[in-house]
């Protein structure tokens, strides 16, 4: 995984609440056995008509947001299916940060495994950033993961919380499995003890 670098750029406003993973990447694109190339179909049914033409008023089709690296979203972003194709599609499109008041658990975890930072902020802060994001190229939102801050264009700074371990992995581009493998002895001894206690399991 690539190391997460600080991001400063245009943010696409998506105020709709409960944006689900079916919206982020509809099921017809889950038929792949690869992780790559899903950005072309990110938000497919909101972004394109049935015959493939762009829907002009969808935010990522507007000139200002076509290269957005940040999404500011309504609450409960990423609810629904566990499909990791959702963060794969976001990342492949170029999204590195999502900002919202809340996320569905599985989606939230999946983001960290794919170099995406899901920032949680209180509603008042998200409202200000949403308004900022509405100003297109006239706005610039900055995310500093190390300092755990999001800054609006005018410099207003919002502090966010993030799990230390997740932050560490994201900043250093670490592979979870490699880290867990370092604890293989603990797993071995747990497994042996557990098997003795629960021979049926």
């Amino acid at each position: 995984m690539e190391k997460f670098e600080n991001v400063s750029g245009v943010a696409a406003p998506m105020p709709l609440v409960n944006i689900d993973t079916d919206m982020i990447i509809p099921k017809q694109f889950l038929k792949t056995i690869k992780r790559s190339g899903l950005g072309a179909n990110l938000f497919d049914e909101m972004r394109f008509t049935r015959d493939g033409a762009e829907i002009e008023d969808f935010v990522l089709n507007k000139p200002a947001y076509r290269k957005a690296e940040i999404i500011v979203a309504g609450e409960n972003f990423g609810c629904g299916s566990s499909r990791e194709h959702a963060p794969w599609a976001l990342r492949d499109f170029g999204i590195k940060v999502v900002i919202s008041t809340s996320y569905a658990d599985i989606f939230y975890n999946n983001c960290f495994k794919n170099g995406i930072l899901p920032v949680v902020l209180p509603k008042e802060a998200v409202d200000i950033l949403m308004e900022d994001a509405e100003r297109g190229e006239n706005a610039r939102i900055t995310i500093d993961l190390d300092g755990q801050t999001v800054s609006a264009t005018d410099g207003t700074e919002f502090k966010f919380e993030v799990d230390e371990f997740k932050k560490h992995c994201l900043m250093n581009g670490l592979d979870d499995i490699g880290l867990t493998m370092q604890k293989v002895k603990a797993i071995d001894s747990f497994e042996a003890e557990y098997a003795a206690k629960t021979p049926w399991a």
Partner: protein
Amino acid sequence: MSAPKTIYDKIWDAHVAHEAEDGTCLLYIDRHLVHEVTSPQAFEGLRMSGRTVRAPEKTIAVPDHNVPTTLGREDPETMPEDSRVQMAALDQNAKEFGIHYYPMNDVRQGIVHIVGPEQGWTLPGMTVVCGDSHTATHGAFGSLAHGIGTSEVEHVLATQTLIQKKSKNMKVEITGSLKPGVTAKDITMSVIGETGTAGGTGYVIEYCGQAIRELSMEGRMTVCNMAIEGGARAGLIAPDEKTYVYCKGRPHAPKGANWELALIAWKDLFTDEGAHFDKVITLKGEDIAPSVTWGTSPEDVLPIDALVPSPEDFEGGKIDAVRRSLDYMGLTPGTKLSDIEIDTVFIGSCTNGRIEDLRAAAGVLKGKKVKDGLRAMIVPGSGLVRAQAEEEGLADIFKDAGFEWRMAGCSMCLAMNPDQLAEGERCASTSNRNFEGRQGYKGRTHLVSPVMAAAAAITGKLTDIREFG
């Protein structure tokens, strides 16, 4: 004496293989279920890094999401190319890594969350994961079960553990008994109506109370299945006699002395008196009505005798979401839900594709006919459910009524395979999600119980099962 614990606390504590100073744990996994759609990239990751499956004997694979459900599906010519590729990848991965496997043509094949319990893989007190959000289903056995992403699938394959921090405890109590016509599906939808789709985020739910105890194992699976629609990663129910009876004698359930040992351990799987819950929701069983969704989020749910709401009935960001939902669903505020005409009925899915669901639907459909022009489909949850339904004569009732009688799979619940709604079609569905486009591009979904779906198939509109007969 140690502090009182919830069932979740107990299962969690029994599975922590390693705990870091910041509370990040490696949680040991007892059962890892795998299907064709969210696993190919994980196996590919193993291959690329030269890793193996740590515990192939605890890993079970079955294709379900993308399999055709039409008769004669074993003919590869009838299968779309992309389905064939995913199926071939699962075949290959199961063989290469030596994991348990139920291929498409095995009678035991079916939806992963139906196959797990049916084969006795899912047992009380276990940790169960799968690259599918409806893994919560297995919580019905008093196991800690939840969905994971593909990176986590790879992590579990390689290490048999999951990196986790503990969730909070939430209690959902359903007191009293359900009234006639009200089912497990109505319980679980009503809870989501109460909490919202984010109400359970960060929690593991324990469902309890008399109405839950009175449910069969099938009903309990239906309740836990939709915990995720309320935002909770996992939902669980304390095991009892019904649980033991269900498990006993299943192919992979413990036998002999191991069964006796297991039983002793399982009897400790209850929440201690005085254990702490961070959130408590209580509903009266007798207040729960046959329910139906009207919008495009599972929280958009009302009793069947209610009216389609108006955006003005809501607050904040939900106002625009409801406006969008109603537009998508083609509904006008104030319309009686029981006046909404449908053109499709889907009975099946990991929520309601078990034998009890089929029996309930058959009870309504016996001697009746599907309304003219309506498309109705029953997709059993597994090959064994299908065989049992045929043996019990249910399949004949469905076919006589005019239902299509399909092979097992996820089918129109997520519509990855050709079982889809066409643009503008409206479906009464026993599945679990009514998202935009879920059952087909611009398709419209109303989530209901199996008896409500069966009644709707006969009348051609959403129907109050209590007034149907």
